[in-house]
Every structure is written in structure tokens, then in C-alpha cells.
């Protein structure tokens, strides 16, 4: 369910960047002074490994083990969301699995919604049965995260499918695949419980924090809807407009007096495009030759 | 103060989290310039003792003092700078993306200048014959190559005290001789464990014999009674 670059409108991508940075910043604030443990490192690595095996699903993005609930249960919601955010960042920056502009939305879905939802489901029901509550956390956590992903791409006009397609596709697929997620989560949690119970100690979260984050999660679809309403889908045009260039296509400003009869706007664009590429070529060679200004180390 | 020990342990025990006994009620003092060989059969607690004496593990009972200090958060870095530990298992030790990064891991933190760093790298990669594998990730090396990288990346920052846990396991004869030679010339304090008694006899002036988590003998190399070794199963 990693959303790539280009599927989201800039306005929606931007909104989720803001929301994500707020919650992640809050988590980091809560973790101040704490040391990241090896459990943190291994869990990130293991989740990373598990997420590698992914397969495309039609009408959405792709499906795979996510591990958000597991991270929440083992590390607590703050460190858990940090761990997931780190996994997603590595995937973005090393594999380009999930886009750079979609980082906010991806972290929101898999590192915040999934982790917090999974954590609370586990905490609520673990009184009754440890493995059942872990299963439930894994299953519902990923399903809800997928619904959020469906919502984000569905609201985006760049991705031409509407909510009525994206939400059911993402939601239903992940509700089915989520059963596997639930089983793995339950298996690992109960195994750890028998061998290293110290890793499962309860991590307390204050009531106020809970209300705050739960509120943000619940309201985020509304924000997204509003952002799409006020946002514009063609920011480049607006930028060009601001620069006063829209009404004055570039080939005209380059060849103001040079009007060949029959030079239509299309050819004009082609020519200015070619000139642009030529300048890029020259600049790139300049970079290449500037290289010798630096000693190899 | 001349004769205060560099490292001292009084009545320390270490129990692993699963309840296994690592070492039990051990007392030992190590002085500047000593070459201590720790020997004992498998599972007798040698590696555990090294982790304790180097301040990496905290004893579950008793206290270790290093340079007169109890290791804590504040003096942590200064102690680490002075104590180098070569782990028995290089896989537990090597964690950098390439051999080069591994060798320069500590020098980089010490902010040694570029020129000096290049020089160190050259010297040690030549000495340990690592030049052709500098760009490889350490986990893709042969068993002995890993061990060599490990030893080189500790020796490269010349700590005052060096703990070597089985430095010669898996390494070839040439490297063994080279390591022995380096350690003989080393001015600092050296603590070695090994199952090859040759190495211990060649390098150490003091031998500590362990069995079942306890020290059963602690003597100079000259007064060593080798019959005891056989009894315990070291040879």
C-alpha cells in the first residue's frame, strides 16, 4: 500500500505531510531522552524484510505485510510509529518504494494510523486473550490503514478513479490479506510472550495524548476533503501565471520579431523544448568537467 | 598510586537473562603493561569475563572499576576510547556497510584529519592484507577475513587496553604470526583468550585459568602447572 509519486494531488500530499510531521514530532517529543534499543533496530529491519515481498493489486497500489500493529505492540505507539516511519523512509530513499511527495501520506497510513489503531486494539482486548487481541490488532490495523490510503488516492483528481472505487478496492483486499497480517502478528507476539516477556511490558500513553491523536486521525479525511476543495490541481500553471508568462509563451519571448508564417504554437513549444534540452546538455557537461575540480577520495 | 590496578573486579558474578551462569564470584586485578592470558574449556566464562572487565556488560553482582572509575553514562566515552575489545564472533562485531567504514569507524569519531586517516587506512589494510576487500560489506567475507577486519579495526585506534577474544580462531598462519608480533610490540595492556596454548605462552606473562565460571588459577607463566590444564580439559 505504498503510494508512489504522482498518484496524489499536491494539496493532499502536502496536507498529510503536515499532519504526519505533527504527530511524528509529538512522538519524538514524547521519546526525548530515551535510547533506541536493539529491539527497535531489529524490528525495523524485520518489518523492512517482510515488506519487501509485495505484490500489485489492481485498482489500487500493492499489498504486503505491513507490521504497524506489531511495532505498536512491541515498542509502544510512539517508538512504534517512529520505527515504521524509519522503515518507510528507508524504502523511499533506497528503493523508491513509496514516493517522496507521498511520504507524508504513507507514513500517516502505515506508521501512524496503523500503529496507534493496532496498539489500542491490543491494549483494549489483551485482558481477554493475548493472541486474539494481537490478531485483531494486526487485521484491523492494516485494513483501516488501507482505507485511508484508498481515501487519499480517491480524493486526488490526478488519480482518475473516485472514492467509490479506491476505498472498496483497498479496504476489501486488505481486509482479506489482513487475516495473514493478523496471524503473523499473533504468532510473533505470543512467541515473544513465552520467551522474553520483558519485551511486552505495557507502554503507558496519557489520556490527553490519546484523545488528541485519535481526534487527528478521525478528522484527517475531512481535512483532506477540504484541502482538495481549495487546492488547485495544476500548480505549475499558477506558478507560470505568477511569473506573468502564461499569456506570453516562451517561444514568442525568445523570438519576438521572428515570426515565420505557419509557425504554430505546437512547433513553437517543440523548438523551445529543444533549446531547453540543449542548454541542459551543456550544463550537464559543465558539471561533468567541474568534477575534476574535486579530488577523489 | 603507582600500583593501583587499571582494571579491578571484586566478587563479580554475571547471570544471563535466561538464568544461565556466566561467571561466578570472580575477583581479579589487571595492572598497566600486563599481558594476561585467560584460558579454560568451552563455556567456562572467558568471553563473559571479557565483557565484564571491559565495562560492556554490567555484573549482576559485585563491581568492576576501570581506571579507578565505575563505568557509567558520564565517563562512558572516555573509557571506550581507551579500551578496545575484539569479540570472539566477528559477526557480532562488524556492522558497517563496508570494510573501509569498519576500519575508519573509530578514527572518524575521533576527528582525525583526512590525511592521517588515509595513511592509517593504507597502513592497516596493507598489514592485514585487506586492500582488495576494502569495498566489500564485511558480512560477505570468508571466516578468517572477517576476523582480520575485526582485529584491524580495533588495533587501528591504538587503545590503551586491548581485549582479544580468540584472535587466532579461523585465521591463517601468516596472520597469526603477524598478530602475535604486533601484540608483542604493543606497549599497552593486553588480555587474550585462546584455545591455542602456543599463543598464550608466546605472548603472556600471566595466565588465568577458568573453569565453570570461576577463576581456579592465576599465576605467572613461569610457575604454571600444566597438569591442571589437562585435568580441566584445556589441552
Amino acid at each position, binding site marked *: 500500500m505504498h503510494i508512489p509519486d504522482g498518484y496524489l494531488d499536491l494539496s493532499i500530499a502536502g496536507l498529510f505531510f503536515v499532519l504526519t510531521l505533527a504527530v511524528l514530532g509529538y512522538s519524538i517529543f514524547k*521519546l526525548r531522552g530515551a535510547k533506541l534499543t536493539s529491539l527497535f533496530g531489529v524490528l525495523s529491519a524485520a518489518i*523492512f524484510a517482510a515488506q519487501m515481498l509485495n505484490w500489485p493489486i489492481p485498482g489500487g497500489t*500493492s499489498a504486503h505485510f505491513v507490521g504497524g500493529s506489531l511495532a505498536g505492540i512491541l515498542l509502544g505507539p510512539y517508538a512504534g510509529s517512529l520505527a515504521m*516511519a524509519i522503515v518507510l523512509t528507508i524504502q523511499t*530513499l533506497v528503493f523508491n518504494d513509496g514516493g517522496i511527495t507521498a511520504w507524508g501520506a504513507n507514513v500517516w497510513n502505515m506508521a501512524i494510523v496503523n500503529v496507534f489503531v493496532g496498539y489500542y486494539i491490543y491494549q483494549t482486548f489483551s485482558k481477554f486473550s493475548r493472541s486474539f487481541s494481537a490478531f485483531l490488532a494486526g487485521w484491523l490495523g492494516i485494513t483501516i490503514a488501507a482505507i485511508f490510503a484508498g481515501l487519499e488516492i480517491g480524493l486526488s483528481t490526478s488519480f482518475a478513479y473516485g472514492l467509490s472505487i479506491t476505498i472498496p478496492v483497498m479496504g476489501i483486499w486488505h481486509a482479506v490479506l489482513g487475516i495473514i497480517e493478523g496471524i503473523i502478528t499473533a504468532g510473533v507476539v505470543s512467541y515473544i510472550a513465552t520467551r522474553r516477556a520483558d519485551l511486552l511490558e505495557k507502554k503507558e500513553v496519557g489520556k490527553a495524548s490519546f484523545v488528541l491523536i485519535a481526534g487527528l486521525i478521525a478528522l484527517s479525511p475531512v481535512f483532506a476533503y477540504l484541502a482538495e476543495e481549495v487546492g488547485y490541481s495544476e500548480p505549475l500553471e499558477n506558478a507560470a501565471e505568477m511569473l506573468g508568462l502564461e499569456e506570453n509563451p516562451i517561444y514568442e519571448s525568445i523570438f519576438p520579431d521572428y515570426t515565420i508564417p505557419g509557425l504554430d504554437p505546437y512547433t513553437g513549444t517543440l523548438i523551445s523544448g529543444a533549446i531547453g534540452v540543449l542548454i541542459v546538455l551543456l550544463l550537464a557537461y559543465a558539471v561533468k568537467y567541474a568534477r575534476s575540480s574535486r579530488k577523489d577520495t | 598510586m603507582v600500583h593501583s590496578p587499571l582494571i579491578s573486579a571484586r566478587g563479580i558474578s554475571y547471570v544471563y537473562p535466561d538464568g544461565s551462569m556466566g561467571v561466578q564470584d570472580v575477583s581479579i586485578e589487571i595492572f598497566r603493561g600486563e599481558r594476561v592470558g585467560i584460558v579454560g574449556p568451552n563455556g567456562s566464562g572467558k568471553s563473559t569475563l571479557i565483557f565484564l572487565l571491559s565495562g560492556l556488560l554490567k555484573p549482576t553482582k559485585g563491581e568492576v572499576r576501570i581506571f579507578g572509575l565505575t563505568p557509567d553514562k558520564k565517563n562512558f566515552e572516555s573509557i571506550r576510547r581507551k579500551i578496545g575489545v575484539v569479540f570472539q564472533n566477528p559477526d557480532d562485531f562488524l556492522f558497517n556497510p563496508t570494510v573501509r567504514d569498519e576500519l575508519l569507524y573509530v578514527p572518524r*569519531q575521533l576527528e582525525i584529519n583526512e590525511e592521517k586517516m588515509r595513511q592509517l587506512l593504507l597502513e592497516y589494510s596493507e598489514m592485514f592484507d585487506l586492500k582488495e576487500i576494502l569495498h566489500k560489506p564485511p558480512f560477505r567475507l570468508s571466516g578468517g577475513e572477517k576476523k582480520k577486519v575485526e582485529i584491524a579495526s580495533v588495533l587501528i585506534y591504538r587503545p590503551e587496553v586491548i581485549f582479544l577474544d580468540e584472535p587466532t580462531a579461523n585465521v591463517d598462519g601468516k596472520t597469526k604470526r603477524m598478530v602475535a608480533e604486533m601484540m608483542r610490540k604493543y606497549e599497552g595492556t593486553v588480555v587474550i583468550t585462546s584455545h591455542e596454548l602456543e599463543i598464550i605462552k608466546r605472548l603472556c606473562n600471566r595466565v588465568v585459568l577458568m573453569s565453570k565460571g570461576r577463576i581456579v588459577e592465576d599465576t605467572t607463566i613461569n610457575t604454571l602447572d600444566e597438569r591442571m590444564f589437562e585435568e580441566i580439559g584445556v589441552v
Partner: protein
Amino acid sequence: MHVVLEKTLKNASSYFQNFFIHDYSSNGAIHLIDARIKLLSTIVFVILAISTFEFDKLSFLLFSLILISAILGLSLKRLFSRVWLFSIFSFLVVSPLLIQDLKYPFLFTLRVTVAIIAVQMLVMSTSFAEICSALRSLKVPEIFIHGLWLAYRYILVVFQDIISILLARESRRVAKGSHADLWRKGGESVGLFFLRSIERAERVQLAMASRGERVIQSKFKFGLLEIIYITLSAFVALWCIVL
């Protein structure tokens, strides 16, 4: 079944290993440019790509990025091998819409492709340590950088472990074994593997402690190379806007 499963896992993890230590060892001009500047220009390129559906702009971007990669020392073959699969996937996802709008699926795929190329240019030319220090100088909190670095290193260890365990199982698999067995053992293996990794990691943690834990900061490079690259990126952006 479990033979197939193990094979898949093994292939996946050895594939992964080679993928992970990517070709930043090769030494093109683009490899030498300061990571911060590459990161920022990548973000600019991606934003350009995903904020338009105009064919002229997208194709100008595509041409420019490919040119830059080729001239500055990236292998185009490698670049495309990392891009094509996802481009096709994106096209398939939106291909049903061909019925409504002939152009949309192509433009959509084009912009996704351009964005991926932009990111791959960064990924293929920058080591992860450099990316970490770039992020740090962009004021990303220390604990996040530390976590990134920690996770990155453990990923290497964990994957090496998976491969060796698979080989070890193979070396002592003397009977075929049933499917039921696989499922029964499967859960246990995952838990065990996890536990083992944690305890291995606890020892690696000791190793890090014994040699200090500071994340290395690579030096800020700023010279002619950077200035021209910034000019180049700025030109691409500007031309793209006015085109």
C-alpha cells in the same frame, strides 16, 4: 511447497543484498555532488513531475533527467531496469480508463515514470550514510537519524541471517516433509528467527558501544561542482514552468 517457498525467500534475499549495496561505489560526477543538493533537487524534480499533466513539460523533464544521468555517469541500463516494472504497473492500474480518455493513462504513467527516475538518480548515486547526514543538516531530529542508521545496519545483518539459515536447513533436509509440517514449523520459525535476531542485535549493540555510537557526519561539500549542478536544476525547473 516449502521448497518453493524457501527458494523464493532465498532468491528474494540475495537479490535484495545486491540491490542494497547499490552502485555508489562507481565514481561518476553525480556521485561526488553533495547529498543535500541532490536531495533537494530530487524533490524539486518530483514536484515538477507530479504537478502537471502537460505532455510538453513531462517530456522535457524526462529528456533532461535522462541526459543528466547519462552524462554524469549513471548507467542508463541500470536506471531503466529499476524503473520499467513500476511504470508498467502504473499503466495497468489506470488502463481501464482508456475507454473514457485516451490520453490520461499515458500522461499519468509518464509523470509517475519521471518521478521515479528523479528519485533513482538520487538513490543510485548516494550512499545511505550521506543521505543520513544530508537529512541531519536539513534539521531532521537526531533520534530519527539515529534510528535510520540503526535500522539500515540491522537490515544487512537480518538478511544475511535469513540466507544462512536457509542454506543450513537445506544442508540437513534429508526427507521431503509434509505441508502440515511446514505450517506447524513455520510459525515457530518466524518467532525463533525474531528472537534470535533480537539477541544477536543485543550483542551487536555491545560492539557499537565498545566503539562509540555517534553517527558519522560527512563533510559539507560546496564547490564549483555543486554550483553548476544547482544552476542546472534551477534551469530545468524554470524552463519547465515557462514551457
